[in-house]
């Protein structure tokens, strides 16, 4: 019965997609788009919470950007067709690089980071969760996610203008291509791809919370639904100039709210709903290979430069500052975790240092385009200590089985970073002052929506497919039971 319902859902989705796919998308879009007039080119984002907004206003904008680019437009910002000369080669090159760096964070970064922390019998399936997230979200982002997040709609959700990427075009002979108003100096295809990598890593992070016990089929359904129903709308709230949190002035430079709080809270809810692993709290569940985890954390650290500095949307001074504060926060996060752990337990652990670095990176994410050196050092240190406390004391106190501490590291460090962005934002760097009350609103709204939506999605998945593997499968390991393979 469950399989039948799930099968019908998939079939109907595929039919809808197939009916909308036409080979003449580019031609239609060219005909549909208005000519590239001065007034139609760019509507700079009004709120600086949009990470890319300052890129349209910066002083060192390359000459390739047309003078008309700064003209305001009262209508909602929508992608438009422009002359190829409006594209900045330097910015585009950096954004292409950043896109690859952010994808590197998921595969192999998160895959290795998580893969090393689970027991040997579950390493393949854990790594596969990240891999399959890349596949699922890539398709869904192109079909509907990008449109919901970044095409004009209302304050809470985008429209379907870009359904199946309808209208996204590059016409070589005419020398025309579409750009998104948030980043008018790079092709829309690059902007869309860059955003896709953020959409990919977010559900991949959640998989760590329910590692070692969720059905692979249920996980696929969960990621698909969550990506469209949770990630895309929240990205619209925070990053699209129309979004209500962006309009309110909530600052999130690179995804502290959209990615990390969203993923961390959803992970906690999923871990609680799915329930603890068999034997949790009674038998040891040691990480089987921390070498993989250290390699994964290192790749995450490197990829994070694309995540944060790439969110400047340009190869400019702000990107440089974002990269600098990212490095400092990661280092202080690792050192802070190490210090607390050393003081409390007498030894600094390898996993602790790697986790502290990730916590520092998470903490600086929302702040990276807004804060200076001092802010970065404080945010990194506080995020490291807070994540340590949440992953050890808080977890023990509440007794939930968040397998790989997605909540402890991502949600808690993300909340610390989001709130402290309101404290340490420097107007000279980001163009705005921070407001901790506004930041708190952003945190609460995102956390509340993520929690409720995740509960509903898991209820649907549990009803149709069932979320949890059989106890004997869990005992034997998901690698052999779900995939028929295992690591020797």
């Amino acid at each position: 019965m469950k399989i039948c319902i799930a099968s019908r859902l998939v079939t109907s989705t595929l039919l809808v997609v197939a009916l909308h796919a036409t080979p003449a998308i580019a031609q239609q879009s060219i005909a549909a788009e208005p000519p590239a007039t001065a007034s139609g080119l760019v509507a700079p984002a009004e709120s600086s919470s949009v990470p890319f907004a300052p890129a349209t206003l910066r002083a060192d904008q390359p000459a390739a950007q047309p003078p008309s680019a700064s003209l305001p437009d009262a209508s909602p910002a929508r992608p438009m067709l422009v002359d190829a000369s409006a594209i900045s080669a330097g910015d585009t090159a950096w954004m292409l690089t950043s896109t690859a760096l952010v994808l590197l964070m998921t595969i192999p970064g998160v895959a290795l980071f998580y893969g090393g922390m689970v027991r040997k019998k579950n390493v393949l399936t854990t790594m596969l969760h990240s891999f399959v997230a890349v596949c699922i979200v890539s398709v869904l982002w192109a079909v509907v996610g990008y449109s919901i997040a970044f095409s004009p709609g209302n304050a809470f959700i985008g429209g379907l203008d870009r359904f199946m990427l309808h209208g996204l075009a590059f016409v070589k002979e005419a020398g025309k291509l579409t750009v998104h108003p948030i980043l008018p100096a790079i092709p829309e295809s690059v902007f869309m791809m860059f955003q896709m990598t953020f959409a990919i890593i977010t559900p991949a992070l959640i998989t760590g919370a329910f590692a070692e016990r969720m059905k692979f089929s249920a996980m696929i359904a969960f990621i698909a639904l969550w990506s469209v129903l949770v990630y895309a709308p929240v990205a619209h709230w925070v990053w699209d100039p129309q979004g209500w949190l962006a309009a309110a002035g909530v600052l999130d430079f690179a995804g502290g709210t959209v990615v990390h709080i969203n993923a961390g809270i959803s992970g906690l809810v999923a871990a609680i709903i799915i329930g603890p692993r068999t034997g949790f709290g009674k038998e040891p569940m040691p990480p089987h290979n921390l070498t993989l985890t250290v390699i994964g954390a290192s790749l995450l650290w490197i990829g994070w430069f694309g995540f944060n500095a790439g969110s400047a949307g340009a190869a400019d001074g702000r990107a440089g500052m974002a990269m600098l504060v990212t490095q400092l926060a990661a280092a202080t996060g690792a050192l802070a975790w190490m210090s607390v752990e050393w003081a409390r337990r007498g030894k600094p652990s390898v996993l602790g240092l790697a986790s502290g670095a990730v916590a520092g990176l998470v903490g600086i994410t929302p702040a990276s385009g807004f804060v200076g050196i001092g802010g970065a050092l404080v945010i990194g240190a506080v995020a490291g200590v807070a994540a340590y406390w949440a992953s050890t004391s808080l977890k023990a106190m509440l007794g939930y089985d968040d397998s790989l501490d997605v909540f402890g590291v991502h949600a808690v460090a993300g909340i610390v970073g989001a709130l402290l962005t309101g404290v340490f934002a420097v107007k000279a760097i980001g163009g705005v002052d921070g407001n901790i009350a506004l930041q708190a609103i952003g945190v609460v709204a995102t956390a509340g929506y993520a929690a409720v939506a995740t509960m509903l999605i898991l209820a649907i998945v549990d009803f149709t497919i069932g979320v949890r593997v059989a106890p004997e499968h869990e005992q034997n390991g998901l690698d052999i039971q779900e995939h028929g393979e295992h690591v020797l």
Partner: protein
Amino acid sequence: MTAREQTTVAELDTQAFALMGRLHVILRRQTGRITDIEYMRIDPQYCRHVLGIASQVESEDLHHICERLQEIYFGPDGLFVRQPPKPPLLGRMGAPVHATTVDAPVPSAGSRTGTPLPPGAAGQPDDIDRAYIGRLR
């Protein structure tokens, strides 16, 4: 017992285990005699008895193994000399159930051979494993 001594004991125990495995196979092939390796490790009398039988068999390999086992278990620093023999298995079976399910350290990769690791010694594999009960970090 110092950490260095513990390591030495663990190494000797591993060597003995491997030698007794070979001894078991050769004795079975050549004489049909079946030996109990685990019992050899915990009962000095049985161990001496098996070594005595093995040394009467015409096999150069077996003689070398016997000499080495004699040294490991009954030499000046032998395992049976260093520490008192463990109680026999039947005796251990009579112990209270909770002693094995709750108090006994959980087997870990570091104690595959059954080498006794002192409980509570920080940094030992069993201790590390127990630290992962209910938490990862």
